[in-house]
């Protein structure tokens, strides 16, 4: 079973990974974006870590909803509302249960990913975070480790794609050959999840 502490540790692990990978994310965002993905997520997840310490939410749903809301209000770029919506909707789907099992969490995360699809309008293959998140959610039914591998493979597989959403879409064919920063940060989020689960 997964409790509030598990989800706090997931968010803290994500914040640490984003801190570690911020420069790489911003480097990926330089050729096809506006070179702020790493610094934006860094600001957002630092605020998440602070908010979780201060407010100490007591259920899995409350942890993720607070994290999502904090990202929406602090990131300043498109990744704020997108990741914010992912975590908020996932948290909302978990309700006020004190503990959730892995199947319930997988189902809730799918609800969150669906909400991101609805918000951003991206389909698989559009070279976005969806290309890492959808395979991860599909694999989460097997294990956290499988979800991590699926997200990483999904992020790598964005390299040959042409962007059809966001700032990178204006580049047309010139977006080909670059790994998508949003899919990469999504893989970081899922890797932190597997790490938290000890897988």
């Amino acid at each position, binding site marked *: 079973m997964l409790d509030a502490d598990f989800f706090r540790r997931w968010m803290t692990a994500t914040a640490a990974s984003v801190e570690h990978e911020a420069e790489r994310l911003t480097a990926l965002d330089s050729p096809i974006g*506006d070179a*702020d993905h790493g610094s*934006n997520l860094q600001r957002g997840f630092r605020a998440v870590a602070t908010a979780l310490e201060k407010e100490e939410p007591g259920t899995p749903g409350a942890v993720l909803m607070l994290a999502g*809301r904090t990202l*929406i*209000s602090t990131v*300043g*770029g*498109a*990744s*704020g*509302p*997108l990741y*914010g*919506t992912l975590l908020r909707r996932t948290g909302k789907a978990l309700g006020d249960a004190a503990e959730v099992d892995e199947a319930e969490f997988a189902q809730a995360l799918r609800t969150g990913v669906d909400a991101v699809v609805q*918000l*951003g309008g991206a389909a698989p293959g559009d070279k976005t975070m969806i290309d890492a998140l959808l395979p991860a959610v599909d694999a989460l039914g097997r294990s956290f480790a499988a979800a991590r591998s699926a997200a990483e493979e999904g992020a790598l597989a964005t390299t040959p794609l042409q962007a059809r959403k*966001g*700032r990178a879409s204006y580049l047309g064919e010139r977006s080909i050959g670059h790994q998508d920063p949003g899919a990469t940060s999504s893989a970081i989020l899922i890797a932190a999840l597997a790490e938290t689960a000890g897988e």
Partner: protein
Amino acid sequence: MSDLVDGGTVEDEGGAKLVGVVLVSHSAAVASAVAELATGLAGGGTLAPVAAAGGDGDGGLGTSSELISVAAAAVDRGAGVAVLTDLGSAVLTVKALLAEGDELPPDTRLVDAPFVEGAVAAVVTASAGADLAAVEAAAAEAYTYRKV
């Protein structure tokens, strides 16, 4: 007649319940300049309340959910608020705030319209006393105006 509210221009309409207009751009300069343009072209009589929510709140390019919430509250006169945005995170942040349910005044709508032309249409229509649906329709109609 004109006050500055959080970097945006708010024209006070003096009691009438007019639709408010919020202009959200990645750039504070763009948002406030478009507000100035729209209120200037709407000028003459009563002006609908207009507020600019531009930039990331720290002087950089980006979107601030805080600035958007403050701007929407500032122009809310109980007749609804029309929000126009430029692109990317501006659109997504407004949508996410609307999904929160309690971050924006009741009857706040993200209007699908070109930013500059839509802002002029929205402010002129709102200043004429039209309701939110009419303001939204006028702003959206700006998409059909071909220049060539």
